[in-house]
């Protein structure tokens, strides 16, 4: 078992890559690329499940750690590991792999080799971001995750793919320039790219405060664009309406939000505290702005884009509330957002394949024709808007209650208004798509309810929403072992071994 524990993260990282190579090498015959991709993602999902099963609860610090030197000078090491913060995000990435493949099963008809191999590379890159504990390694995966996404959006865009791809790429690539400079500056000052070492050196070293402000800001800016936070969301709607379904599920949120928690708040607690009031304000604006825009969209992908902006802003609010409960809720809500969005995107993608449009007003009265699709859609919608017993409720409750008690009442009230608006636009969407009079388009096509493969994915996702709503402690217990809000962290809590590393690092300088 030890051997597995010591190599599991490498395996999770390499299995999709191996699958990508296999897809690229083997011929594009029948459904061969689809099957290889599906089996690969299933295998890596099973591997990710190993993590929570053998995760030691209550043990702080990183588990399943691997730390091997990679490049001698500058010192970059292959240092990976998970803690409560990243544990479930890795599993979520693993879960969304097969879901994404199923969602593209018949939607992607040509150049399947390119699609599936790049999709698998994307999986590797995302897992890499979540498990890297070396800043350079992290940056590597962070940048790598852009390329497959941009190429796939360009190739499979619905109307003007290349334009959306360029927008997406530049929006996320340019802010990573200051991020890299900031990382290099930290290295020049501390001689380390290692997360844990840096954390201590920043907390105890005498780095110039003014420069640290800029460094922290560079980190924050790169992450805020990726999330996206309110004024930086320009790429979101175009990307959502152009990206293939499987990629739209993963493009927003997770990477940026996790990075904020780990690398902005985690590395620069002082600067994060200073930036928090502004971010809270932006987050609340984002919640309301996103919800209002979602209300008036005519295209359901764009509606989902602004809904995502609203929901992701809520999570940003929780992160910069800087409370223990809020952070638990933030991670939990990322998981919810991932599962619920996956189900909704799968269903919307299925509708688009069947009826060939994403214009909401072309639909109507679908429930009679596709009863099973309607059922799943309604359940996912209810989960998204936070109906008790479903997962969205737990996350929103944790976030809003912690903001209410720990941050500010007025902001909470404003944010709750956004949640109400969220219920409005989602239920209205359900009503326009599935109920009311049957539209001409719907009447003109034969009824074609969910296929077996779609059902096979949606049923477990729905069960998951229910379980996550009823027994959140399965998740929150392990999430909380990874959370150390800044006020709980003091010099007394430092393990001596880490201090030695840091001193050694200083001597090396």
């Amino acid at each position, binding site marked *: 078992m030890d051997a597995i524990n010591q190599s599991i993260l490498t395996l999770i990282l390499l299995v999709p890559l191996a699958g990508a190579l296999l897809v690229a090498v083997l011929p594009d015959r029948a459904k061969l690329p689809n099957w290889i991709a599906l089996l690969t993602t299933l295998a890596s999902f099973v591997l990710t499940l190993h993590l929570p099963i053998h995760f030691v609860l209550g043990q702080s610090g990183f588990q399943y750690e691997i730390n091997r030197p990679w490049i*001698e000078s500058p010192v970059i090491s292959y240092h990976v590991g998970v803690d409560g913060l990243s544990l479930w995000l890795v599993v979520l990435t693993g879960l969304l792999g097969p879901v994404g493949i199923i969602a593209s099963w018949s939607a992607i008809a040509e150049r399947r080799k390119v699609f599936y191999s790049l999709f698998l590379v994307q999986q590797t890159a995302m897992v890499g971001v979540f498990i890297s504990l070396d800043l350079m390694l992290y940056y590597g*995966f962070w*940048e790598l995750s852009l390329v497959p996404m941009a190429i796939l959006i*360009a190739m499979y865009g619905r109307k003007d793919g*290349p334009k959306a791809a360029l927008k997406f790429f*530049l929006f996320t*690539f340019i802010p990573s*320039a200051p991020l890299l400079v900031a990382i290099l500056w930290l*290295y*020049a000052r501390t001689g380390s790219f290692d997360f844990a070492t840096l954390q201590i050196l920043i907390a105890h070293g005498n780095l110039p405060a003014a420069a640290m402000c800029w460094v922290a800001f560079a980190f924050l800016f790169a992450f805020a664009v990726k999330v996206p936070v309110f004024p930086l969301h320009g790429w979101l709607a175009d990307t959502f309406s152009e990206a293939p379904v499987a990629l739209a599920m993963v493009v927003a949120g997770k990477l940026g939000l996790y990075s904020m928690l780990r690398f902005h708040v985690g590395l620069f607690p002082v600067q994060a505290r200073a930036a928090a009031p502004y971010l809270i304000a932006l987050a609340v604006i984002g919640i309301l702005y996103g919800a209002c825009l979602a209300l008036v969209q005519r295209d359901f992908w764009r509606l989902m884009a602004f809904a995502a902006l609203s929901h992701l802003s809520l999570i940003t609010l929780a992160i910069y509330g800087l409370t223990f409960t809020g952070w638990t809720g933030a991670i939990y809500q990322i998981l919810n957002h991932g599962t619920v969005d996956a189900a909704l995107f799968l269903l919307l993608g299925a509708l688009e394949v069947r009826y060939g449009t994403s214009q909401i007003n072309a639909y109507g009265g679908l429930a009679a024709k596709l009863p099973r699709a309607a059922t799943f859609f309604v359940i996912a919608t209810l989960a998204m808007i936070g109906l008790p017993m479903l997962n969205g409720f737990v996350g929103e409750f944790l976030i809003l209650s912690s903001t209410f008690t720990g941050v500010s009442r007025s902001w909470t009230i404003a944010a709750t208004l956004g949640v109400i608006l969220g219920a409005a636009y989602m239920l209205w969407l359900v009503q326009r798509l599935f109920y009311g009079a049957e539209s001409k388009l719907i009447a003109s096509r034969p009824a074609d309810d969910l296929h077996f493969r779609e059902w096979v994915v949606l049923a477990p996702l729905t069960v998951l929403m229910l379980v996550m709503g009823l027994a959140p402690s399965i998740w929150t217990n392990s999430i909380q072992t990874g959370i150390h809000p800044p006020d709980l962290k003091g010099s007394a809590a430092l393990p001596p071994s880490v201090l030695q590393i840091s001193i050694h690092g200083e001597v090396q300088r």
Partner: protein
Amino acid sequence: MNTLLDLILHFLLPHESLFRILPEVVLTLTGVTIMLIDASLPIGFPRRLLGFLAAIGATLAIWASLLQLSLPAGSSFFGTVETSPFTVFFHVLICGIVLVALLLSLDTLPEDSHHQGEFYALVVFGAVGMCLLTGAVELLVVFIALEISSISTYVLAGYRKQTGRGPEAAIKYFLLGSFATGFLLYGIALIFGATGTTQIYEIAHLAPSAQNHAFVVAALALMLVGILFKVSAAPFHVWTPDVYEGAPSPVVALLSTAPKAAAFALLLRVVYEMFPSLHALWSPLLWVVAVLSMTVGNLAALRQQNVKRMLAYSSIAHAGYLLAAFAGLGTSGIAAASFYTAAYAAMNVGIFAVITLVSGYEEKLPLIDDYRGLLYRAPLLGGLLIFFLVSLVGIPFTGGFFGKFYSFSAAVDGGAIALAIIGLFNSGLAAAYYLRLVLVAAQRHPDQNAESAVPAPQVGVAVGAALLLAVAATLVLGIVPGEVLRAAQSGAHTLQAPPADDAVPAMTVMPQPAP
């Protein structure tokens, strides 16, 4: 194998001076042999075999350079030619580029083209000049080496003389290049006037105490103009797009990398070894040139419609990224610059190889729009094009990333944070035009018939080998850069060795402290 090696070393070691210029000797012999065979072959006889001969010569030269590592660092021929890990690094790099360019030309030069034999001979002679340039430590030898390499590249640039663009490119390159060489020569003359010597180490020794300090400064400035022209850094870059557009693509693969590598080696030698005392003067100058090059290059590239012109401007921008490394402190700056040269060469040769195959020797498809649907028409070439472009953007796990990474981390180390920020924003800007080509290649052609009308290019064995080498180099530099970086660093150490310390123990016996 080992005994053979021993045998060769046994034969060579007594002739140390010869050993120190062995790669140049090998290349010269290859070139002369090619010329002789070419002259004696009947007119209609295919000359392709000569290309293989040249490729073998380049491979042997790489091997000869690696053999030189067994020599202690030092110079021969009255202190004019040096051998050290630094020169070996650049020798291997230049010969590697020449090898790939030769393999590329083998399959793409039309079978019936005139003077094929001369083409291969010129490439090899150019390599002699470039190799000698990296090893020369005497300014007149530097000048001669630069001329050898320049003259053969002038001729190669105009190789497609039946088109209008070829001779135009050659004449522009020749005229502007001669001016630049003139500047360099003036610089040499002035520094000789100021110090009375042309030996680089002696100049380094004498320059700080030279009576005519103005002469030394003027010499530095003039020499910088000459060298920066060769690396096509702004504001001395105007020749680049025209020459790249007019010259045949396999030649551009060579032209945009090998002479630049040699010129950067010379630049490193001049600023770090010859004028370390003037650091305060050349460092801000190179800062400005770096910023100018990347900004001008990238802004101009954004507006290009012709792929080769776009890549020409991109190469100007890359010269800027490379110059950013000169803001680094001593060894780390030199190592970063050397590494960047290698990474840039790997990906640039690769992309020009792809372009040669796609648009053909006659360049029937020169525009970005002509690449539409390449990924569907020729999946292998399309994939490789995207791969090399991704590396040029600087995405991690490719050579381009570590090149930029080391260059900018050297700059940050040296305190030039503004330069690093400008540089990285520039690389974001650059992503826009590289990505435009990627997206065009990944986009379906609106007219399906037009797609099948263009025949998919054939990838021959030699070109396949060239592409494989370029891909392998780009990946190795991006995933396991340790080995190459170590070579660059050991090169940097030899360049950094202060000449005074080297010279003193040789002349006077220092009392050794008891251990």
